[in-house]
């Protein structure tokens, strides 16, 4: 199996606070990789370091074998990285199709207009948004916004897609749809890295789980293994169960 993302000794300090400290992990091609941990564990910071929105204080990030530690978010996108946010980041005054078209056009430099349109329509199809193509992004429901976020990232033809709590705020039926969508995307050959709070979702989706606490890696493994780990139960699941 080839490694899609390799993070080595990543650290990010905000002033005196170590949001992420000495974090290393590898994500292999074709897997669904979950990052879990209590609030403030540094999960989103990890995704920001991997996607280039933040520059690490120390450590390195490799994408498909290439060192991208100093690369801009756009360069990482061109190298095959897609990202969807917990707080959606649409272009509000564009239609859905135009939002996705922007991803297709600029995600792959030099792509022809016709190919970009084709790719945009494909991404809308996969995410079930074709019927809403002409709607402005500011008029969507939360579930539709999350689908748009994924569609736009898919249109950039990523090798790996980072999903930041895409299930947050969704009703159970919508979450089931979203799980189906993530699996469909993986079946197209896209590796998935996701952050999630809802444990049943992690159980249903994740091939492997990275557990973080206070900016450090607590443990890593299959869902069944990590959820039996005493440290994880103490740091994370124990508290959740008590609540």
């Amino acid at each position, binding site marked *: 199996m080839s490694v899609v993302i390799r993070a080595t000794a990543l650290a990010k300090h905000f002033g005196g606070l170590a949001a992420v400290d000495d974090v290393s992990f590898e994500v292999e091609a074709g897997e669904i990789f979950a990052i879990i941990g209590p609030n403030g564990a540094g999960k989103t910071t990890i995704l920001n370091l991997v996607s280039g929105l933040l520059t690490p204080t120390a450590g390195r990030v490799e994408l498909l074998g290439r060192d991208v530690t100093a690369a801009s978010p756009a360069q990482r*996108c061109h190298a095959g990285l897609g990202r969807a946010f917990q707080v959606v980041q649409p272009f509000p005054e564009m239609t859905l199709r135009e939002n996705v078209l*922007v991803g297709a056009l*600029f995600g792959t430099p030099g792509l022809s207009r016709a190919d970009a349109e084709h790719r945009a329509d494909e991404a809308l199809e996969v995410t079930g948004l074709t019927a809403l193509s002409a709607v402005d992004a500011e008029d969507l429901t939360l579930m539709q916004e999350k689908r748009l976020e994924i569609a*736009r*990232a898919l249109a950039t033809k990523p090798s790996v897609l980072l999903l930041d709590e895409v299930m947050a705020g969704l009703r159970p039926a919508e979450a089931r749809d979203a799980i189906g969508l993530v699996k469909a995307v993986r079946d197209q050959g896209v590796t998935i890295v996701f952050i999630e709070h809802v444990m049943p979702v992690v159980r249903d989706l994740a091939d492997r789980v990275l557990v973080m606490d206070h900016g450090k890696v607590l443990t890593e493994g299959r869902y069944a293994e990590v959820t039996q780990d005493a440290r994880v139960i103490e740091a994370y699941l124990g508290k959740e169960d008590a609540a």
Partner: protein
Amino acid sequence: MDTTLLVQALVSGVLAAGLYALVSVGLALAIGVIGIVNFAHGEFFMVGAFLAYQLFVTFGIDPVWSLFIVAPALFALGGVIYTSTIRFVLKAPELNQMLLTFGIGIILQNLALLIWGGDPRTIAGISYRGIGYQIGGVSIGLVPLASFVISLVLVLGLYWMLSSTPLGRAMRAVAQNRTGAALVGLEVNRVYLVAFALSALLAGIGGVMIAVIQSPTPVVGFAFTLKAFAIVVVAGLGNVRGILFAALFVAVAESLVATMVPNGDTLRNAVFFAIIFAVLIRRSWRTV
């Protein structure tokens, strides 16, 4: 009331609106896409005017041809100013950004005063400058008419560029969501650079036209910064599409006051301030 005078004032206002829209649309582009309130915008306009003047005096180049020299020159100047200063204050507080652009404006203005002095400069002896048409007692000068048409073509061209080209899409994407744009492969800084340079280019072309319409001094830029701000405020900060109608409104208001009010010519700048105040106060009511 003299109807001919009223019609003349309206026609003059409409003709001026083209040039005003051209200058304002560049300012709106900088505000809308980059989020930079550029107080030096009018100075790009002034530099365009004096480049055209100097090209005429030194090389005898007709201002019509100067357009094709000044446009790339101002694009380059805008690019240099963005790269050397603006990009460093993108995340700074707005007050810092405004002080920076204000300072750049003062530097450009003083450089121009050093080079050309404070007297009005005229591009004299070009044949088409005096040509005008009389239609039912209303006179229309060829130069204002041409400047109106050129401006309108450029503003509509910009609108088309924004709505239908990859560069325009990139600008709108960056304007609407900087983070989202970066993550789908847009180099945000490069888009900002082009937007700022384009903004300077549009102002510079306007400057070439004012060098023929009037006899500008190096302080002409400030007057046009003021006009452009009034128009941008009427259109809504950063709203590029609303500029054309806002320019029409502001230019006609200026022309009517200057023509119909006794001693109105001295009140021109007051018109812009009055419009800015009125619009801002009205907007503040809405949000309270």
